[in-house]
């Protein structure tokens, strides 16, 4: 009997140690980095989280800088009930569509999709119910990031995306955790680029502090924060 417990303990220790190594290697070290070169004609599936209000405005302004013929298809992730962000995303899409040459053959409706996820925590929500809503949000993110790409019938949205743009607030941390789960499991996962808000001059936001060790690129917009992340001038 003692022998069985001893073996089980040894096994458990081994599994936990391996998991810890895997966690460290895939999430923190982000190795081995697959810096693969792409040819200029290649397409890249882009996803962006629209965190409502100023977050959405900044994220869409960042996106407007990109070549939508290269970054296609696009996935917009919005929080439940945030109709304004959905509307703004669709406005950007139609603006970009009008910009592209008339000779471009566009497949209307196939170029982008909008995913709705529950909020991790609503403004003024009680702290007691936050674990429940956050878990619900995480499960939905895992569904979209981990499960749906495997089971989906539309090949253009599988895998989840090649790159994910994040700029806060809290719910985007939960989305980032779902991506980390994919990395831990060895499934395909997008590159994560976090851009701290233009409003953050001297200190990082809470989502910035949480995501900094997890993302592939962490960019700030003020030289006062250069010690915390990459500074390349104003991006918005």
């Amino acid at each position, binding site marked *: 009997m003692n022998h069985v417990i001893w073996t089980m303990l040894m096994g458990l220790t081994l599994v936990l140690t391996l998991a810890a190594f895997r966690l460290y290697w895939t999430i923190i070290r982000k190795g081995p980095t697959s810096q693969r*070169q*792409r040819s*200029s004609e290649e397409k890249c599936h882009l996803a962006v989280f629209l965190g409502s209000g*100023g977050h959405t405005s900044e994220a869409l302004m960042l996106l407007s800088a990109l070549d939508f013929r*290269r970054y296609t298809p696009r996935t917009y992730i919005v929080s439940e009930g945030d109709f304004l962000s959905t509307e703004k995303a669709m406005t950007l899409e139609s603006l970009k569509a009008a910009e592209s040459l008339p000779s471009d053959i566009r497949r209307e409706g196939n170029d982008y999709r909008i995913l709705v996820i529950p909020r991790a925590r609503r403004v003024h929500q009680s702290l007691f119910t936050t674990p429940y809503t956050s878990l619900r949000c995480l499960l939905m993110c895992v569904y979209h990031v981990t499960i749906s790409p495997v089971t989906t019938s539309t090949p253009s949205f599988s895998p989840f995306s090649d*790159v994910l743009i994040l700029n806060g607030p809290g719910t985007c941390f939960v989305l980032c955790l779902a991506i980390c789960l994919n990395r831990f499991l060895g499934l395909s996962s997008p590159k994560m680029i976090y851009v701290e808000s233009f409003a953050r001059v001297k200190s990082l936001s809470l989502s910035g502090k949480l995501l900094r060790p997890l993302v592939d690129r962490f960019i700030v917009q003020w030289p006062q924060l250069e010690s915390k992340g*990459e500074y*390349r001038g104003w991006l918005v």
Partner: protein
Amino acid sequence: MRVFVTVGSTKFDSLVQAVLSPEVIGSLRNKQYTELVIQCGNSESGSETNIQAGTETRFTTDGVNIVLWRFKPSLNDEFTTADLIISHAGSGTILDVLRTGKPLIVVPNPTLLDNHQEELASVLYGQGYLQYSTATNLAQTITAFDGRKLTKFPPFDGAAFRAVVDQEMGFS
């Protein structure tokens, strides 16, 4: 000439009160501003702000025509038709107004708990892009303010972010 005042998505009673005070209205009229449009959000500042959502209140004080309403889906038309904008310190509003090239006076909301907003307003004030004021000093600020002395705000340039994403994804 027209002034547009915006408090953003929440409430900012002290700014609305200050703007409707005889001192501020007097300073505006002295500067030839005869139209005052106020987006007051959820602010409550006495009888003037007894407005139903979706409606507006109009009245004239001291020769200044005043219009008050709570929200509109987009404020861009208001920014472009105004000659001066007085706003809360929200980064989105600051960015939108500065990009229209209109002179801006920012009044940070001292009742907001997480007041990092004030940081942005004060650093942009330090760089000469906008004027900075408190609600109590607003009349003096307007009297002393000369929008032509502000530094021109740079236009949006997407090249830096495009380079980051292209590089990260292995293009180039």
